[in-house]
């Protein structure tokens, strides 16, 4: 390995801290206001892009999170942080619920709980004072019932992959591109494992096929809203 990603190295040139000073965005806005989803029904925001080779991509600035998450890279990091908060809270709740999981699912839960909390910590550190506050979550039993937990975990992990992929070309700083890529890897690993546990024949290991697909922020936020997990 040429180097190891760690929290300090990501901010190797102080870009994270420096940019944080300039970042705007009211982190006290409620999630739904940030997402531009308060009140009205949700607009679907574009078709899912086919991921075939270079045609894969939306135009360079497409699909960004709403400006209420913050400017530029900080908006994207706060958007990512919100999704990571959701995942971490979901798994923390599942852990606390002491679900009667198979040993494989139990091992999965340990790994994802560790990793998603680490992602939250990383993004919060990267954002510093500009970090969005953690929303209030209500999982409505989705993480206290084994079957619901297994299916929801699979959806969350795959959504994570699609959401990060959808922002990777919107990021400006190389350090963030590397960090986001590193997190995509992990979300994809989680997604394939839970997919395999749910569908042992393997159809859910790579549900998008040979190329993972990006989702725009509008698509992801609409999907998150539809879960009702964020109050």
């Amino acid at each position: 390995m040429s180097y190891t990603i760690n929290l300090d190295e990501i901010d190797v040139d102080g870009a994270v801290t420096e940019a944080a000073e300039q970042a705007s965005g009211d982190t006290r806005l409620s999630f739904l206001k940030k997402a531009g989803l308060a009140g009205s029904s949700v607009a679907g925001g574009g078709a899912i892009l086919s991921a075939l080779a270079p045609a894969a991509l939306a135009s360079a600035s497409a699909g960004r999170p709403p400006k209420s998450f913050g400017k530029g890279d900080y908006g994207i990091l706060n958007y990512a942080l919100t999704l990571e908060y959701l995942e971490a809270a979901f798994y923390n709740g599942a852990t606390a619920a002491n679900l009667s999981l198979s040993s494989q699912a139990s091992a999965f839960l340990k790994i994802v709980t560790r990793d998603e909390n680490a992602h939250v910590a990383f993004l919060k550190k990267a954002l510093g004072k500009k970090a969005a506050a953690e929303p209030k979550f209500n999982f409505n039993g989705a993480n206290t019932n084994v079957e619901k937990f297994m299916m929801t975990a699979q959806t969350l992990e795959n959504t994570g992959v699609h959401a990060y992929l959808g922002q990777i070309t919107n990021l400006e700083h190389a350090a963030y591109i590397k960090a986001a890529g590193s997190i995509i890897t992990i979300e994809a690993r989680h997604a394939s494992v839970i997919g395999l546990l749910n569908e042992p024949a393997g159809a859910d290991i790579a549900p998008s096929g040979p190329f993972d697909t990006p989702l725009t922020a509008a698509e992801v936020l609409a999907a998150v809203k539809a879960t009702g997990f964020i109050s």
Partner: protein
Amino acid sequence: MTAALGLQSVPNANCDPDVDGAANYTQDGVSYRSAAIQAQGKAVQRAISDPTEVLKMSSPSNEQNVTQPAGIVERLVRDDVDRKRFLKMAGAAGTTSFGAFVLAACGSSSSSSSTATTAAVSTSAATMSAASNSTDIGILNYALTLEYLETAFYEKVVASGFFSGSVGSLIASFGAQEKTHVEALKGAVEKMGGTPATNPEGKFPIQSASQVGLLAYTVENLGASAYLGQAGNIQSPEVLATALSIHSVEARHASTLGTVVKKSVTPDGAFAKPADMSTVLAAIKPFLP
């Protein structure tokens, strides 16, 4: 594969003669098909019959910087054989652009050094753009070379007959996906005006199911970290999006295989580590002709 691996009824089982005669046993409330795993080798068998071991927590990630291997540039200057092989692999147009691409591609270099390198190679904006283009073509050809190797590897694994049933189907589907990556990358290189690298015709030890399973796990992890190692070097958003959309599928393969061979599904911990070109080159050397 996993847990899954030995798991019963593969709905689309178009294939496995063993499946029908397989005996079931139940563990952890999940029914496993023992016959389906017999051909898989001891390691795999252990993993399946001991599900507590299947998904291992990875060891704590090593947060310390690893001692840097000699930079690829220095190595290539020193080692003529390496340099020729790499030039051939990368299918780079010429030494100048190759130099720019290698420098820009060094995993440890920051984007600023890659920019500086490009600027050093050429001062006019037009040439800089050409250099960026050749940087991406070089990276695409590097990825193409890795995908050629993976494809050839899976073809040999499938031909070995070591895997049947659901595992065999998975192995075959992974191989098919690698082949799709090859075609996509060739198309991308051509679209950018480059010449796709030629297939290096890799050679692989194919000795037993457990050995092959471990090798597959290693190869897929390497593939995922190789793409990640280029994420900060790629110039074009299209190429970046393509590379990362392939990279996460390599990661999916790797973690799935991890469940088969009883290795960590997240060997780097919560943040995947990138691998630079010199690391990857050293790792694939044994498989090159």
